[in-house]
């Protein structure tokens, strides 16, 4: 018998993240590397651990292999405990049916039995799309204090961008009176962050009802939230003001990496009370050779720098050979930039090799991308905004 939990977290990690192009060809978006030694999922998982939430279901569907291997036993996040911990929850066959997750709400619906094991009072719904540090426990207290049925984390976005988001219109007491998905004429600039806390009894009811509706798209934003509002349930908006970055596109992923190079860092990654945990590659310390130049750059274990690097983020085991130059770029684990190659404003995915004298990206324009495991022949050029995968012809 598992002991009762106050709050169980469910992390939606099944999306493909197709806007990340070739970066999510073989991996699910939450497993995309970020910030020199992390993957996107480290942020919500570490937030859970730091918030005292020790039971997390991770709902996977698209290309789960790498994500599953990465999560493993959950030890890097202290989630390898006996009463709770982290659980990977793929879709599964049932006696009478068996199907893929049809929508965010359906994914939770199909895993109600997992949640019920812990008999929780509340359920926290998360996604694996954002870089942020947030105290979910403070949000839970807010939810309890307001006697809410559902609490939606919101952040104020610039008014001119509000029409791109799901917008919450609230009264003076933070109670949500209306929810508009991508409104043409927004009445508020409070955008949903896709982080929800539900009182479990209510959510169970609404998920069950939603399943009966054959026309529903089984989505939190499109169905569950509007239905609850329609029934005059208590929905409140919890304002979050910290750093929050969607990394759903190549440009935003690149920008979020570059944000870590700002002084002061917009997201404090040195905070010892709120560490972001990650699975450690266990490589030796990195080496900066004689003749190398490095500025405004993040470098981690296993890297060897013989060339020039500025305004960039290097992941574990990256080698920058003599005379190579890397500028405003993100070089993911295990990649090698050969002698004399120039990489600018680019993302080089894992285990790629940029051949000697090759030129990737341009000083201006869109971010160029070299896909996982690609070997770029010596001397070739990749223009700004181009994505290089196996189908690319040189």
């Amino acid at each position, binding site marked *: 018998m598992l002991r009762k939990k106050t709050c169980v977290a469910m992390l939606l990690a099944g999306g493909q993240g197709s806007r990340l192009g070739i970066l999510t060809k073989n991996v699910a978006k939450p497993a995309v590397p970020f910030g020199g030694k992390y993957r996107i999922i480290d942020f919500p998982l570490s937030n859970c651990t730091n918030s005292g939430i020790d039971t997390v279901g991770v709902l996977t569907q698209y290309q789960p292999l790498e994500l599953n291997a990465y999560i493993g036993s959950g030890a890097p996040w202290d989630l390898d405990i006996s009463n709770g911990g982290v659980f990977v929850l793929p879709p599964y066959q049932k006696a009478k049916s068996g199907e893929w997750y049809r929508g965010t709400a359906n994914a939770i619906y199909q895993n109600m039995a997992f949640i019920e094991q812990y008999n929780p009072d509340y359920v926290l719904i998360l996604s694996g799309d954002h870089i942020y540090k947030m105290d979910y426990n403070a949000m839970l207290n807010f939810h309890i204090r307001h006697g809410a049925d559902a609490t939606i984390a919101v952040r104020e976005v610039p008014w001119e961008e509000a029409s791109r988001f799901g917008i919450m219109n609230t009264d003076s007491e933070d109670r949500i009176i209306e929810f508009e998905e991508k409104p043409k004429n927004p009445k508020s600039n409070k955008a949903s962050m896709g982080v929800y806390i539900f009182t479990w009894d209510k959510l169970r009811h609404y998920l069950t009802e939603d399943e009966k509706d054959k026309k529903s798209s089984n989505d939190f934003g499109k169905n569950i939230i509007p239905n609850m509002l329609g029934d005059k349930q208590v929905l409140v908006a919890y304002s979050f003001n910290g750093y929050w970055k969607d990394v759903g596109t190549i440009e935003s992923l690149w920008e979020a990496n570059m944000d870590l190079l700002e002084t002061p860092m917009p997201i404090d990654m040195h905070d010892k009370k709120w560490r972001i*945990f990650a699975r*450690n590659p*266990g490589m030796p310390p990195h*080496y*900066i050779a004689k003749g190398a130049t*490095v500025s405004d750059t993040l470098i*981690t274990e296993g890297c060897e720098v013989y060339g020039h690097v500025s305004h960039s983020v290097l992941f574990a085991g990256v080698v920058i050979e003599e005379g190579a130059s890397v500028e405003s770029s993100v070089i993911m684990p295990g990649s090698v930039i050969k002698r004399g190659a120039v990489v600018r404003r680019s993302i080089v995915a894992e285990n790629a090799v940029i051949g000697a004298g090759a030129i990737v990206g341009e000083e201006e324009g869109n971010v160029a991308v070299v896909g996982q495991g690609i070997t770029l022949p010596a001397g070739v050029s990749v223009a700004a905004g181009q994505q290089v995968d196996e189908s690319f012809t040189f």
Partner: protein
Amino acid sequence: MKDVMGIIYTGEGDAQLRELTITRAIAALPVASRYRVIDFLVSSMVNGGIKNIGVIMQKNYHSLMDHLGSGKEWDLHGKIDGLHILPPFLTRENVGIYPGVLDALRSNTNFLIRSKQETVVLSNSSIIYNAKMDELLKFHQESGADLTLLYTKDESMKRNESGTYLAIDENQNVVDIEVDPTHPSHDNTYMQVLVMKRELMRELVDKAVAHGLHSMDRDVIQQLVRDGHATVKACEYKGLCWRIDSVQSFFKFNMDILDPKNSKGIFRDDMPIFTKVRDEMPAYYGDHCNVINSIVADGCQIEGTVENSVLFRGVKIAPNAHVKNCIIMQDGQVHEGAYIENCILDKQAIIKRNSRLIGPQAYPIVIAKDVVV
């Protein structure tokens, strides 16, 4: 699964390491930006398939215990065997401080009895190596020796008045042993790693201690070689190794690692060295920093100049600070305008603004833990 267990003895003398070993055993000494000496020994054993490892603690073992924890980082936290921390304890015949490795093993006879493996590898902890333990074990089994000693021909391992040196015949039999000679006359330095049957170890230890003996090398191995009662063979280790027995040798090891030839020799993809992780973010290099020929760990923030140095996790080098030929341990700080050369800063040491500290290369300055200069 291999039928072998490991024991690491961490009670060696450390007088020449000055402030560095006031609060810790040699085994717990921080080295190469993110490791401790014991990481190399435990990782070698684990990579060689050994899953039952006892670490005999002596004095100041808190930092060592803290570092090893449950053994999780080495995958030694399983239900079957795993890591066993063996601190000294008081009994009628044991007063807690071991005069030698024999006494330490005698005190931990229970660990030997309880273990199930047939063979045991015993290692000291003042020599850094990354050995293929499975090859050593294979040698031991195939040669039919009762006792196999690991040795190196590396000249830099020789010391006057300390160390154990072997004479070996063409069949790899040990024919003579010198312990702490004024000038070693043999070129083969015993690396303080040996293999024998668990039962034999128990018997030898028991007999020796019963006769009031303390030294494994002098009182047991040398005796066996002289009497010819057992076959003692030697297996050559051809990899890199360093003896950490003084501030100078500690300094030299760290500086040697700056040479990629050395670091690639000891840190091998097929034999990784595991250590406790600290979840620091990657190191940040500022706009005007100047770093050459240095190794740097995660969590560092570098704004100044760093040459030929080894920086541990969380070290901060301020703008216009200059660090040359230094070892700066975890969370050390060098403030603006300071210049330090040939210094070893222990954990959390701070060099304040505009200080100058230049040690002679042959005798680096050691700044103790938490000291502010």
